[in-house]
């Protein structure tokens, strides 16, 4: 056996880097972990940006787009979205007696180019007719002979001219002249003409509306640019973009504020029931079962009536109150369940052993540990509150004119759905996008925050 000799050097520790010893990743708090997970979820992140954009639209929008949502632009009623419209300047209106030199041709025809100032029609006298009835329609005359709006009855067979000045829009119209029999009833015979109406204005009107650029010398035949409405106007000529912004304030206020209030109440209620347990729990939860059983929409309306809002009036405060009164039980039940569970956890017992008081336990351990669930509930509560507001405003039981919300705008828009679909489409689109964004964010938050629900879908 050979002898091994050791020197002092052999007992020196090999140099080690302290940092290498640390093999754990930095510890993440619950919220940091949730944020990391949320950031990885592209759909949730996208919906978060969408919501931020909607909030910016609502809050900062009116500073960028300063058009007053109440102002009526009577030149451009129900205008479809698009670039600013041009109007040709023409001479002021001169009454017409139908005696202009008839342009060549026969049958129903225009006496002069049709403008929004006047449409002047001419036709030939018809043998045996007692007179004529003039109609205007927005659509071609089909099989069923729907002529549209009757404009005038002419009871003289020789009077074969008509001037229309009724609320003319720059669009295509179908004018029909139907012969009347001796009893003044329309016979089947009719002539129809399609008329393309040009947008015109006079110098005075343009000046009065502030459309003439400074220092510009305008003559007849020139064109001026009318006020710009990127998303068009509604049936009273109000700017859609500005109205959508002011509607967003109402819709999002109700949609976000009411859920915050009722979830807060639900948390307090549920925490009380869960923490005290026994008969307190029994009584409180039985009562919440009753509230759940109330028919939701009927009671929304009932509470509105009960707070003295007359039909046709706007009731934002009653709407929020009703949502709070009826919305809390789901949160209360959820939080109670959570508290019952957390109450039995080891760290709560440990804390109690160390002398923690009830209030401290609730505030330090119970509420923070239910925050994730509460936040998810809140995110899902927003779209349902927005839906409720829209639904009620739509049937005229929520926000009423002149105040705008997305729901009440839909209510107004549906009346002109066939002719001016943009008045319904835009507010409906905003409701859908908002609801969609909050739902997707809710899904993402649930995946990120709630470990137990992870991977259920």
């Amino acid at each position: 056996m050979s002898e091994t000799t050791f020197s002092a050097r052999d007992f020196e520790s090999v140099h080690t880097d302290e940092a290498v010893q640390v093999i754990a990743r930095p510890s993440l708090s619950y919220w940091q972990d949730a944020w990391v997970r949320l950031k990885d979820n592209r759909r949730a992140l996208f919906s978060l940006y969408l919501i931020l954009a909607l909030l910016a639209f609502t809050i900062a929008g009116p500073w960028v787009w300063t058009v007053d949502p109440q102002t009526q632009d009577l030149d451009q009623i129900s205008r479809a979205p698009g670039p600013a419209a041009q109007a040709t300047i023409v001479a002021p209106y001169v009454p017409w007696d139908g005696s202009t030199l008839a342009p060549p041709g026969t049958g129903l025809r225009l006496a002069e180019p049709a403008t929004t100032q006047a449409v002047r029609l001419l036709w030939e006298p018809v043998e045996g007719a007692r007179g004529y009835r003039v109609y205007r329609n927005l659509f071609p005359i089909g099989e069923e002979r729907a002529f549209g709006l009757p404009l005038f009855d002419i009871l003289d067979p020789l009077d074969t001219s008509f001037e229309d000045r009724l609320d003319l829009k720059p669009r295509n119209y179908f004018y029909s002249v139907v012969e009347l029999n001796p009893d003044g009833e329309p016979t089947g015979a009719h002539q129809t003409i399609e008329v393309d109406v040009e947008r015109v204005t006079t110098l005075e009107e343009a000046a009065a509306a502030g459309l003439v650029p400074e220092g510009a010398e305008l003559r007849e035949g020139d064109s001026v640019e009318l006020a710009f409405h990127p998303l068009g106007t509604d049936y009273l000529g109000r700017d859609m973009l500005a109205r959508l912004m002011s509607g967003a304030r109402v819709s999002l206020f109700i949609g976000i504020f009411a859920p915050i209030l009722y979830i807060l109440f639900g948390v307090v209620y549920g925490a009380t029931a869960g923490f005290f347990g026994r008969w307190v729990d029994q009584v409180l939860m039985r009562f919440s079962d009753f509230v759940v059983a109330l028919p939701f929409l009927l009671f929304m309306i009932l509470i509105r009536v009960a707070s003295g809002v007359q039909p046709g009036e706007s009731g934002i405060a009653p709407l929020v109150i009703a949502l709070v009164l009826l919305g809390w039980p789901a949160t209360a039940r959820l939080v109670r369940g959570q508290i019952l569970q957390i109450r039995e956890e080891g760290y709560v017992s440990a804390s109690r052993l160390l002398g923690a008081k009830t209030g401290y336990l609730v505030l330090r351990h119970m509420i923070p540990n239910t925050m994730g669930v509460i936040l998810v509930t809140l995110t899902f509560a927003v779209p349902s509150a927005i839906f409720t507001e829209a639904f009620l405003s739509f049937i005229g039981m929520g926000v009423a004119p002149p105040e705008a919300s997305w729901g009440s705008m839909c209510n107004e828009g549906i009346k002109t759905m066939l002719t001016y679909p943009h008045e319904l489409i835009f507010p409906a689109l905003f409701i859908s996008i908002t609801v969609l964004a909050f739902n997707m964010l809710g899904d993402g938050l649930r995946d990120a925050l709630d470990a137990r629900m992870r991977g259920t879908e």
Partner: protein
Amino acid sequence: MGRYALKRLVQGAITVWFIATATFFAMHMVPGDPLASDKAVSEKIRANLEAKYGLDKPLLTQYGIYMGNLARGDFGISFTQENRRVNDIIREHFPVSATLGILAVVFAALGGILWGALTALNRNRMPDIVIMLLVILGISVPSFVFAALGQLTLVNINNLLGFSLLPVAGWGTVAHMLIPSLVLGLGTMAYLTRLMRSSMLEIMNSDFVRTARSKGVPAPRIFTHHQLRNAILPVITVLGPSIAVITTGGFVVEIVFAIPGLGRYFVQAVQQSDYTVIMGTTVFYGAFLVLMVIIVDLVYGLIDPRVRLE
């Protein structure tokens, strides 16, 4: 089962009492004299109402009279229409709403189960992606937009065909009912599809399905006897609340399609401040919904015996 049913019925009765009480006190919070509105109530009606409800007596006495009448199934007399009992109004208009609602629930449930199963079986393939996109649309678009679009499509189809394939509005025949009930059920159908899909996905990975497969049970039989039957259970649980959502959601569809249902009548009653009709309709609807939830729960108990043990 009998005890369970009885317990649920007693609970239901107490809930209906609570709904009636809440309705009564809510309506008595309305500021001012309900009879002194601008839509003048005729002397005859006024005298009748005061005598019947003891409107000059204290609130609690009125409450007693009201509950007594309700217990006898008497909802009172309309404020705005002479000699029209609320019971008659409900009898006349509710069957319409109920038919609409039942059809909508059937559409929603069948559609939800079918689409949900289809998406789960084709997970992450084309049918799944397309249907789930439609589901997202169904969940985020408000019902009145569907109603408006449904009507618009109908008008266009009828115009295109040159004859009336399906009526655009009104009520009476089966043809009138199809589109409105479909529109009414659409939102719930989307929700149920989502629920069915996740429940089906869970079942597909469960042990008993694997066992069945290993025993050599043919795939169609596994689908009908093992997967579908178990996956439907969560859908049935939410069917009770869904009936509530659909029947009260009928308001909009009834208004858009001009259907003479109770929902439309209720909205009219609110506009005319017809308090007895408002109260009667609310209590009636509330009782109906409570009953529906109980029935669904009992059916659930029959299908899934585990529930009764709780």
